């Protein structure tokens, strides 16, 4: 295909480049890309790797069985509900701290150093400490998830609160709005784009945090399922669980996209990513 793309066409015929014709049907192109990726994977594994290594054909065979098996469903339920709980706690705490840091100058000076500093820390590093505090229990996993997702939310909300147009706040103050009215009536809605960008980051980090915590503390869940299956050379089954994890990440992202596009059209322009 690359050779065809690079070729300079003859001047005579009405010229329509190959890439244009292909681009007119992106779905076919994307399918071809998928076939290529999966095919390459299959062939490389078949030629070079031992039989237990995951390959698309075997994953496909394993898929229905794994997805229907109660242990996997239970594990997925456990991990996802932990992620949901952790995200909820991080959301509430992150919004409050973010609003505080972003709209109270003194709090900003005192806290932004810590919020920014801890945001930069790889949250994996905190897991051993959390095992001391919470033991080798699911509470340690929840704490990991909260820790992983709190900082992106707090930081983004603080950025958003800082970017609220000053006139809005002045008008509100002139009408004697109370602080909580200003916070939840003006600052929070106007920093919504930032909050959503923060939640997006937080979801990915929360999933990673859950998996890491399960690896370290060996509590039941999708991460532990992956660890166990791959240790016992059930790579295909383990990879189904990985796909499930990635699928959740994609679904949440698409869900947020959908909400933004259908409900919150007005702010798309101001959205900040990563």
């Amino acid at each position, binding site marked *: 295909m690359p050779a065809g793309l690079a070729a300079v066409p003859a001047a005579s015929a009405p010229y329509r480049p190959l890439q244009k014709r292909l681009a007119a049907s992106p779905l076919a*192109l994307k399918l071809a890309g998928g076939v*290529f990726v999966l095919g390459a994977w299959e062939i490389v594994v078949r030629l070079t790797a031992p039989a237990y290594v995951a390959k698309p054909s075997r994953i496909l065979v394993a898929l229905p069985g794994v997805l229907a098996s109660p242990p996997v469903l239970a594990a997925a339920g456990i991990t996802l509900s932990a992620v949901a709980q952790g995200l909820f706690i991080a959301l509430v705490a992150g919004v409050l701290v973010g609003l505080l840091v972003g709209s109270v100058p003194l709090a900003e000076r005192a806290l932004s150093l810590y919020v920014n500093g801890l945001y930069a*820390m790889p949250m994996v590093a905190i897991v051993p*400490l959390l095992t001391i505090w919470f033991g080798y229990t699911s509470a340690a996993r929840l704490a990991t998830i909260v820790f992983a997702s709190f900082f992106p939310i707090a930081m983004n909300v603080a950025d958003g609160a800082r970017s609220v147009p000053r006139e809005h706040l002045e008008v509100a103050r002139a009408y004697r709005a109370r602080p909580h009215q200003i916070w939840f009536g003006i600052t929070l809605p106007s920093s919504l784009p930032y909050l959503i960008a923060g939640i997006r980051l937080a979801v990915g980090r929360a999933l990673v945090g859950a*998996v890491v915590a399960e690896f370290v503390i060996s509590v039941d869940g999708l991460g532990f399922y992956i660890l166990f299956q791959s240790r016992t050379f059930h790579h295909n089954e383990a*990879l189904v669980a990985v796909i499930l994890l990635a699928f959740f990440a994609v679904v949440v992202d698409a869900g947020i996209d959908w909400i933004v596009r259908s409900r919150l059209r007005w702010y798309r322009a101001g959205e900040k990513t990563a």
Partner: protein
Amino acid sequence: MRRPGSGKDRLVVLASLGAGALLWELGTRRLSPAVAAPFSSTMSRLWEMTVSGELPTTLIGSLVLFAVGLGIAVVAALPLGLLLARLPAVRIALSDYIAIGNAMPMVALIPFILSLFGLDFGAKVLVVFLFAFFPVLYNTVEGARSIGPELVEVARSFRSSEWALFRDVLIPAAFPYAMTGVRQAIGRALVGMVAAEFFLSASGIGQLLLVSARNFDTAGLFAAVLVINILGVALMGLGRALHDRFPVWRGTGR
């Protein structure tokens, strides 16, 4: 974020750090040292580890792992992303799969790497590489997407050579995006570094964290967390500086 520019701001930052240390000290004094070590004993442990050479050695080991993994990822992903900028059909075909790779929680793949490639340095580099590769590729391809096809067509119709096309059109347009990717990759590679040191053969700062947690040496654990936190802040600063040097608007994007 407010930059500590003026002297007064710097003073506030210092005061905030001092207050944090004081709170840390006072808040943990009455707790068991196995639960939380006070600031003072963390600092003395940190000093001990630095003087004994333990900390510098582990830190260098970790940084080598980080740099090799990240370096290979950038060197591999940048040219690939630029190549995809030149081949729009291939780019459209693959971009969704690159996005999936970017969204993939890579930690979940560590058990596979362990059983396929063992737990030596090469396997750990592979982990860091996997964490860092997709952000760079994904963002470079995003940059490539922002290049209007008419730019390439105009360049071609003026008989631009392939090299000139890359030099004057594709690279300047995609590079700022690639730097955004490098910035993200730095953060992820750091996570990958610690994860690799946790789950493959324990080494470097990851080992320090695990061992001090296992021995309930909380002072050592806090010291290690502090070091990795400072490392994170420094590397993030580096990434931001890199990113800010190449603002996106400078390219030929829309």
